[in-house]
């Protein structure tokens, strides 16, 4: 027979005002199995908790029911309390008589009646509770960071700094990400390269960090503390260990008409290339789409000139498997394809550019050597129109528009306007905006400087059409504040295109069993309280892959993710959630339906030998749940027809006992 103690909390007057707490305690005394019941002003207070602890000891309780606020509030508190006096914490149940009773029912009689029913249900469940102990799994002391942009680099550095090994997987030949492509950063206008390239070097030289550049994650299995990751190292045709990064091959390569992705195709590179001067690792890569040797079997110049003998035309993709304790997604973002926004004539005129292209045009290492020349005729533009929110805050998804604000565009546009004016004060600059959003340290000051000191024309309104005409771009727009139509003869139009998640993110999320929102940003475990963790244990989020951010926010989140990883890796063993599924092997038929619905791949099958009742043996396939992987959703329990699969803490019989009690 169970010995249950029931503790009814007044929560000051929060509960006591609409629930007769004494009546609830009195009713509890008449419930079979209950040996002790009492009420108290604040059960969660130290003295309230002591009351419970003392009763556990005094009456030798086998279960505790606390009638109080939501279990989401204080279940942990009370579990800890009973744990401290030697009772298994999972023998405690909460009856939620505050959020789901006293606060929603005004009539005291009704409230009391319901509170008693809820108490009885909790007692019914507590009677069936069995002690649960969390399993332990060892932790592999190595982390994986997917993505080598500023987010990934910062996360990797912070983790390495704590003494743990980190691998970065970067799909491009170099780390650095988008930040390496930027010219200056807002609101300080310091040179982006000057701050990011030392970081890249630091990453490259850190002994704890290993960079898998030009590589992709192709498979993830395992679970928190014990992930197994397959990394595809794409064929680079250059031996990384031999290449010195001298660049001779890139100079000699006869195939020089390859669009340079680092400069967004605004100029060309050779087929064998180093993305940019400060690339890390500074190793050449042969582009298999353009290399004459690989495509036509003729040339071989690079191999001839390479003093290190690093060129290897026979290179192939290789897959390696590495074990990690934690994984950080830092996959960043892409610029949305704006070609569907035909009214801006992006595909019709080379002088309509995206902001990132403009960034390259301003950059000293860019295609124009830092001189602002428009792409069509390499002349300096005199009138430039900036269009904000292209694809952002857009409900029309047919053109790929995004419902969200891309967050960074207002600030970088102000930056572009000011930098342009700094270099060429005679330039006329118009910025068309819906709203100017500047919530950030020194952001509004920065924007106002553009308007007030630099005389940039900020116009609230929309650009209706851009028409290329005789080397000009005729911009038709409306000024909403003046309520008039404008026509501007511009030399260049710069589109603040929306940013969107990396196109590889969804595939990655599937492999990581991490969830994504409808826009393909990774979702966090809790939007407020766990912003750098994914709902999948051991998978963390760093940077823009979780949602639009500027650089300082990204770096801050990268550090936060790193600290979470460090926290995880610092443990030798992980205690799991004991409320997981388990299969009764005597009943399991091994039909595989449970594995079909398990979102975590927590269920595997083994052939097991059973001794039958007549002393013969029989080999049967049975399911086994990995408690470290199982998250306890219970999908398997319903799929299992024999009920062999049950869930700790929410077992079939416990839930049915609650049903019975509530229907009584």
């Amino acid at each position, binding site marked *: 027979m169970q010995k249950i103690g029931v503790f009814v909390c007044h929560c000051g007057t929060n509960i006591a005002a609409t629930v007769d707490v004494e009546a609830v305690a009195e009713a509890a005394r008449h419930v079979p199995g209950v040996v002790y019941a009492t009420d108290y002003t604040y059960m969660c207070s130290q003295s309230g908790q002591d009351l419970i602890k003392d009763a556990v000891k005094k009456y030798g309780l086998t279960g505790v029911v606390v009638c109080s606020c939501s279990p989401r509030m204080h279940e942990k508190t009370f579990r800890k309390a009973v744990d401290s006096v030697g009772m298994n914490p999972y023998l405690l149940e909460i009856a939620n008589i505050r959020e789901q009773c006293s606060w929603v029912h005004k009539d005291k009689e009704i409230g009391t009646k319901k509170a008693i029913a809820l108490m009885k249900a909790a007692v019914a469940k507590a009677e069936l509770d069995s002690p649960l102990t969390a399993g332990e799994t060892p932790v592999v002391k190595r982390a994986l960071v997917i993505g080598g942009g500023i987010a990934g680099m910062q996360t990797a550095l912070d983790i390495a700094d704590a003494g743990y090994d980190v691998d970065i997987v970067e799909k491009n030949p170099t780390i650095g990400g988008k930040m390496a492509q930027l010219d200056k950063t807002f609101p300080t206008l310091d040179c982006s390269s000057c701050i990011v390239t030392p970081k890249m070097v630091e990453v490259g030289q850190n002994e704890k960090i290993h960079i898998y550049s030009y590589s992709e994650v192709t498979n993830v299995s395992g679970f928190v503390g014990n992930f197994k990751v397959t990394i595809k190292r794409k064929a680079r045709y250059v031996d990384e260990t031999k290449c010195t990064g001298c660049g001779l091959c890139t100079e000699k390569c006869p195939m020089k008409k390859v669009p340079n992705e680092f400069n967004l195709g605004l100029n060309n590179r050779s087929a064998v290339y180093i993305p940019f001067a400060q690339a890390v690792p500074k190793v050449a890569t042969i582009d298999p789409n353009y290399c004459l040797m690989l495509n036509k079997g003729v040339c071989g110049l690079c191999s001839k000139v390479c003093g290190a003998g690093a060129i290897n035309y026979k290179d192939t993709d290789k897959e390696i498997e590495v074990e990690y304790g934690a994984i950080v997604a830092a996959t960043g973002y892409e610029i949305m394809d704006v070609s569907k926004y035909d009214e801006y004539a992006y595909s019709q005129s080379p002088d309509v550019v995206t902001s990132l292209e403009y960034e390259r045009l301003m950059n000293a290492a860019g295609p124009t050597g830092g001189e602002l020349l428009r792409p069509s005729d390499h002349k300096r533009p005199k009138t430039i129109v900036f269009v904000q929110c292209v694809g952002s805050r857009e409900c029309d998804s047919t053109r790929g528009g995004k419902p969200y604000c891309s967050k960074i565009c207002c600030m970088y546009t102000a930056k572009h306007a000011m930098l342009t004016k700094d270099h060429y004060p005679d330039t006329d600059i118009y910025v068309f905006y819906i709203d100017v959003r500047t919530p950030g340290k020194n952001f509004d000051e920065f924007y106002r400087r553009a308007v007030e000191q630099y005389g940039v024309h900020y116009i609230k309104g929309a650009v209706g059409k851009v028409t290329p005409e005789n080397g000009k771009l005729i911009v038709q727009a409306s000024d909403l504040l003046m309520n008039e139509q404008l026509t501007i003869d511009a030399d260049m139009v710069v589109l603040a295109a929306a940013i969107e998640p990396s196109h590889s993110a969804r595939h990655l999320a599937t492999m990581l069993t991490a969830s994504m929102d409808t826009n393909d940003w990774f979702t966090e475990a809790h939007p407020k309280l766990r912003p750098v963790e994914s709902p999948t244990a051991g998978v963390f989020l760093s940077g823009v892959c979780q949602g639009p951010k500027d650089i300082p926010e990204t770096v801050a989140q990268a550090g936060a993710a790193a600290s979470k990883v460090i926290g995880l890796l610092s443990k030798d063993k992980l205690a799991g959630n004991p409320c997981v599924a388990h299969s009764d092997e005597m009943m399991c038929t091994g039909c595989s339906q449970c594995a*079909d619905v398990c979102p975590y791949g927590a269920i595997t099958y083994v052939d097991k030998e059973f001794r039958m009742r007549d002393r013969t043996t029989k080999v049967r396939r049975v399911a086994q749940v990995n408690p470290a992987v199982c998250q306890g959703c219970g999908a398997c329990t319903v799929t299992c027809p024999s009920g062999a699969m049950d869930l700790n803490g929410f077992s079939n019989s416990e839930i049915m006992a609650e049903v019975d009690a509530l229907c009584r």
Partner: protein
Amino acid sequence: MQDELIKRACELLDDGTVNRVLGWSTGDFFYDITPTVFGSAEDVKKNFVYNDFCGANLSKYLIAESQKEGKIAVFLKPCDTYSFNQLMTEHRLKRENIYAIGIPCDGKVSAETLHDAGIHGILGVKRDGDDLVCDTVYGSRRMSFDAAQDERCRSCKSRRHVVYDELLGEEGEVLDSHRFDEVEKLEAMTPEERFNFWQGELSRCIRCNACRNVCPACNCELCVFDNPKSGVFSKAASNDFEDANFHIIRAFHVAGRCTDCGECSRVCPEHIPLHLLNRKFIKDIDTLYGDYQAGEKEGQMSPLSAFTEDKDAEPSIVQKGGIR
């Protein structure tokens, strides 16, 4: 056909391909068919039977038989092959121990149907064109073959074998079945009428478990209704609720797995049309999630394990006029 089957069974036993043959035998009548494992060619020659009454689905026997030493040959009618595949999907059979022989079927008859039609004292039955001619102690009685067939055979879904190692006779086709007609009739009734219909049917249940024990999909090691710890354990159909509960849960447990072999209705001593429950699930699944035939292919994912993120109907569809 029987001779051909006997010949093939003997060959397989003699050449050592198999050491046992799973088929059918009879007792004092020609219709009291019992699934039987034959261990020798001699045994086969003496006792093996294949006739219009061999309705029993042999697939489920393979769960136990395929675990035994040596290979067993089994004769599978088209609808039995679906059960076979479904059992394979659920990893219940040791395939390497089975030699599956597909055999044709043009519908099976139960002696029950003849008895229920008032034909008693049956001594023998012959096919005469579209009719069955029964020789009885009360004289010769005639019944159309169609009417004598089990319901499942009248609304046969397929005469195509979906799996076999060897096929005897001609391969048939997937048929344009009218098997959902009865379900549709029920759907067209008012809830009141439906309730009365089902209560009338289900209240006769004696919980003999024949439906469950014959069902190839009901192959649990321990059924929830036999497990005192499951919370739904009950030995008797003590009231209307328990009748309904048993049959709803059973139908739900086999939903997406039931191949509609119709054994449940064939064996029900109370003649409860249990197949109408399973067919409702099959029909709903077909309507909502696309045509799905359990057992059609080995390794298929049950529609109750699968889902689509944005195309699945909301449960409120039931309130909004139901799934038709």
